[in-house]
């Protein structure tokens, strides 16, 4: 049954899951979880209980969290003007209307599902998630989101070297985040957020909302969409929070078993 599910997905989904999550293998994650390979399937009907999350294409059912019409209502499809278009964002654009670019929400939805799935997996593994945003208007919302899902946030001036020179910044060996979620990847119109580069240097996976004037190349899971409108950012915050909470819920359930 699992093989059927896996085969039915494209190679993209399979590599997306296997790329990162396979490295943190079952044995290291939870000691009491039964090893499916060694013990074998106990019953054909009860697949859910011992289906390996890492093999499942959408173990946390993140596709249920939003619909494309939700994205439309939250104005996620609005981009900036054609003049400020970043070349690498061209594949994600549906078209333009009156010089304003419009994102293809089908593509956005696919990327967002991947990003949410990955986030949920990281939360399931007990990873540290850092929300980053330099939008002053939405800084409070982002910090509140982080507080609500018991993760971390950084919406202030980014001191260079927080990841690359953490020993100096924090005074001791610190554990760095396992995932960086960028609610907007730019400091201002001209410069990209330093954390994108630092996360890439330190091999920390990053999820980022990229607008038409952003560079998606250094992000692991770019999500093309509007990063300026408050309702769009609130939607992203809500979705990521929900994904993280689901991951943590499953983690707690599996620990308790």
């Amino acid at each position, binding site marked *: 049954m699992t093989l059927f599910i896996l085969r039915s997905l494209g190679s993209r989904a399979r*590599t997306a899951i*296997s*790329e*990162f999550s*396979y*490295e*943190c*293998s079952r*044995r*290291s*994650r*939870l*000691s*009491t979880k039964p090893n499916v390979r060694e013990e074998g399937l106990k019953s054909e009907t009860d697949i859910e209980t011992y289906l390996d999350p890492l093999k499942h294409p959408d173990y946390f059912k993140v596709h249920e969290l939003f619909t494309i019409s939700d994205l439309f209502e939250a104005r996620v499809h609005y981009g900036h003007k054609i003049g400020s278009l970043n070349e690498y964002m061209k594949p994600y654009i549906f078209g333009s209307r009156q010089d304003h670019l419009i994102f293809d929400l089908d593509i956005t939805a696919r990327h967002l599902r991947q990003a949410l799935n990955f986030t949920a997996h990281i939360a399931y*593994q*007990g*990873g*540290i998630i*850092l929300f980053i945003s330099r939008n002053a208007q939405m800084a*409070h919302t982002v*910090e509140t989101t*982080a*507080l609500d899902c*018991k*993760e*971390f*946030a*950084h919406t*202030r001036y980014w*001191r260079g070297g*927080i*990841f690359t020179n*953490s*020993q100096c*910044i*924090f005074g*001791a*060996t*610190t*554990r*760095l*985040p*396992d995932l960086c979620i960028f609610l907007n990847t730019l400091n201002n119109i001209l410069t990209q957020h330093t954390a994108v580069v630092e996360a890439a240097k*330190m*091999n920390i*996976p990053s999820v980022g909302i990229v607008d038409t004037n952003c560079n998606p190349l250094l992000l692991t899971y770019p999500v093309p969409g509007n990063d300026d409108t408050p309702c769009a950012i609130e939607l992203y915050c809500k979705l990521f929070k929900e994904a993280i909470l689901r991951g943590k819920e499953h983690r707690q359930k599996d*620990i308790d078993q």
Partner: protein
Amino acid sequence: MIPIIKFVVRNSNYVSWSSSSVTANGAKVLWPSTLTVSFCTNNNDSEKKPSVKKTSKAMKAYLERARKHEEFIKKENLEYQIGKRHLANMMGEDPEFFTQEDVNKAIEYLFPSGLFEPKARPFMKPPEEVYPPQKAAEFDEAGRPYHFLFYTGKANFYKLLYEVVENINNLNKYEDRMIRKHLTPDPTQAMSMIGSQWLPQDVLEHRLVEPLHESQYAAFKLAFDRLVSHPYSYRVRDFIEEYRKPLVNQVALQQIPEPQYDENGRPYVTTTNCLRKRSWAEVTVRGAGSGKISINGQGLDYFAEIQSREQILFPLIMTKQLKNVDVEAKVIGGGPSGQAGAIRWGIAFCLRSFVDKEMIEQMRLAGLLTRDYRKPERKKPGQAGKRKKFTWKKR
């Protein structure tokens, strides 16, 4: 060395894992999986790699340091309390009611020091005042920080700003509800910022246990000013007052002397060392008088100039004590202006004992109680006078 994860794209097989997640006694240990370095090998056997132990050792060392500091402070506090009781017994005082001031006096008595700098003299203080505050362990054994703003580097400070914004948002929502009910803020409860100022930077740094840049302190003041300017700011009065320092009323601090009584039963106050420029004066103000003024045995006509006479009368006129008191002054040195200034200050200083607090505050605001410390500047060599230079010649 920051531990890194290698994300390797492999088709089917998984990577050998360098640490077992079950300890010898079978207890569950949730290792921070992202801290370990994974090596790509083809076999499934787990090998113990030394790099795993290094990182958790560093973490453990940090946590150990934090714990030791806490224990140290506790021990010091205990020693201080015991020492205080011993000191009280030595001085013959009640240990229960021995305050820090008593401790300071006792130390000064038992260990007299000839050193000029007060900070160099022996002291006995609670450890919180002596040792700089350190943050407790900021993350748990798994390496996960406790504070959600840990990665900003100034978690407490930015948490404070977050709370300010949270309060402003809540007050806005409250205001909306009140507007819908057609209600207005209560003007009697409005917060008054007079008589207090925002916590100074060093005090704030001490409280937050974080060093602050000037721009950050400015941001702190800006955020709080914004909060206070909200019409319903009185609802979060407690939160605001925590970061407010009251300006102490200087007059309230001063100890005003009680008048002494002479043979006739008349109250009098004497002030010596009334200094102004090169003059020295000693002034006695006697109550229950009729307005007699004597300066060096003479009356007001001791001073030829009207200005000097006005200076002496001014404090008496302002406090309306002109006909109620007698003034006796002895003055030497200086010129008419200096002597008049010295006597004026002396009279004002003595009148504090005959007048109520409001009038004293008015005298202070009028500048009568301020000692004018300005002294004549000396003449410098190479110059004609204090500031006047010799004629400048181009060649």
